């Protein structure tokens, strides 16, 4: 099943998130990530990432579009937009040697170390979902104590006409 990204512009009021998420729950679709931000207009933008087949994805798109508090639901084409994710990683207490190895790997992946105390590192990574996923998997539970992930944020690419 393909990974899908929906961007839903909706009223910023209590209950909206529940209305949206329950349309997934009811159809037994697991939401992999969900982020909310408030637009300059005061409307909320919710970005959802999930896996579904074509028929279900289209059905869900129509179902979300129908909700009274939803102004617009867009299917995001990752090719035509800039999609990023931020991850914060905290390591376990590491040996000196291990620690420097991790620092090198984080920096190689374009991340940076934000804090280190007593051989425990906190690092920041940003990039596309798959790259972050690869780093997190490579480090693994022997090294990582905990991670915090932002979920997907995106901006549509400007077309020639906008510029």
């Amino acid at each position, binding site marked *: 099943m393909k990974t899908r990204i929906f961007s839903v512009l909706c*009223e910023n009021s*209590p*209950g909206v998130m*529940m*209305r949206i998420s*329950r349309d997934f729950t*009811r159809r037994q679709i697991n939401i992999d990530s969900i982020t909310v931000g408030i637009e300059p207009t005061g409307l909320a933008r919710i970005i959802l990432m999930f896996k579904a087949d074509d028929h279900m994805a*289209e*059905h869900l798109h*129509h*179902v979300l*579009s*129908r909700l*009274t*508090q*939803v*102004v617009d639901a867009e299917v995001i084409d990752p090719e035509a937009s800039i999609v990023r994710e931020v991850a914060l990683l905290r390591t376990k207490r590491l040996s000196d040697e291990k620690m420097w190895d991790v620092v090198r790997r984080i920096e190689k992946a374009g991340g940076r170390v934000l804090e280190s105390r007593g051989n425990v590192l906190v690092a920041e990574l940003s990039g596309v979902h798959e790259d972050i996923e690869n780093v997190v998997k490579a480090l693994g539970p022997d090294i990582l104590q905990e991670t915090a992930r932002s979920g997907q944020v995106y901006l549509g690419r400007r077309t020639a006409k906008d510029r």
Partner: protein
Amino acid sequence: MVELTGAKALVESLRVEDVKHIFGLPGGAVLPLYDVLYDDPGIKHILVRHEQGAAHAADGYARASGKPGVCLTTSGPGATNLVTGILNAYMDSSPVVAMSGQVPSKLIGADAFQEADMLSVMLPIAKHNFIVRSVAEIPHIVKLAFKIATTGRQGPVHVDLPKDMQADKADVEIPARVEYVKPTVFELDLARVLEAVDLLAKAKRPLMYAGGGAISSSASAELVALAELLGAPVVTSLMGKGAIPEDHPLALGMIGMHGRMVANLAVTDCDVLLGVGVRFDDRATGDVKHFAPKAKIIHIDIDKVEIGKNVRVDVPILSDAKRALAAVLEGLRARAKRGRPSEWLTRIEKLSKELSPRMDYDEVPMKPQRVIKEIMSVLGGDAIVVTEVGQCQMWAAHYYVVKKPRHFISSGGLGTMGFGFPAAMGAKVARPECDVVDIAGDGSFLMNSQELATVVENEINVVVCILNNRFLGMVKQWQDLFYQKRRSAVDLGMVPDFVKLAEAYGAYGDRVTRPGEVAPKLREALRCGKPVVLDIPIDPDEHVLPMVPAGGRLDQMLT
């Protein structure tokens, strides 16, 4: 701007929406509102005996009149008693505005006395729902509630009213502006309309399939005109009964599990199927792989979610049924004259004659077909027929010839036993000039028979005809057919005596046992000036046939 209590603002807002009737039952959390209703001259409150009755009555009111029905309850148990009725209205796209009291704002979340989290409870079962957070927004919320309930694909809206929001005062503006309402009228895609026109003009075996959407958009005139222009027979869903007068030569009746055989065969054979405001429900389509297998399908619907959901659609037209049909008509009229599909019509006519359902039975106990026949002989086209759920419903749907839209009212999507009687009550309040008859099963009627008190007290003179088989008949039928006649938990025994039950409430009760007696007794019932229960014992072993077993093919009916 005027300073009003929330309760007063609410009632004023209801007046702006032209609300004349509210079905409800009070309690602690709606006392301020009931205090305003106490001496309100314009709104009649009808006190039900169970809140489920209020919801179904509002639903029946809406279906009979096309105007939103309104119901009102207290918080907690009063509000949760609405649940079945609200979902029932949602499944059948009926415009209902339901309101409930709620504990005072500062107690919400504290498990206060009679607190129920109605915002969450109603969320998946209503088209939309609100909780009032300030007195000043009440007119705005009421306006939105009615707007949402009655536009686009119609449906129920629930408003939760914390007690302090009813009692407190604020400066409010009536009528209020509506800031944002989802657009529900779409640009008609003319290219699609012309594609449909093309297909229909070339069709050798065209068929139209009308649903509830054709009725809620008042598209009957366009539907019939198009059928006549094309020479296309028309079948309907349960919800579509009455969209075309069923005595029209092109009307073939309902399709589906308990549809007319000729209607099901027409679906299987047609080469172009035009669906109008239908959702291709599984009870109607049977096995979708064999649904209209030879046909290109054109689907007109106002709700994008429905298009392509259950069956493949070749030409989708996102629109209100009336507008789309008018456009298709225009398009066809602009074309050169074309012949009628006479071969197809001859074949259908022949099948229609051969398969015409038999109703003239003389046995005692009576056959339900005979009972429906006699009921039909008494009621004119203006009578509103409401049904309960089960065999009684399917006999009514299969045999009863409905002549007008909004004159056949039945719980389609949810199949709610106990819907019919309170819905009949609501229909009678909305259309007092019409005879209203509930074709009931004994099991269903008992689920909301307490509303006998309401109809007697309020002189709402509906007639309940109980097709009494002393069984949960439809369940028994499935057990007979698919579970080797192991009749598990379906025998209702011989109680109650429905005549005495009616009399206990002060209604008129009578028992009809012999063929030929139903018609005169029903005539008498309609004249007696009281609500009536006619207890009509029927053959308890009768099945609803023909039948498409669940998931079976429409052209392979059990007989």
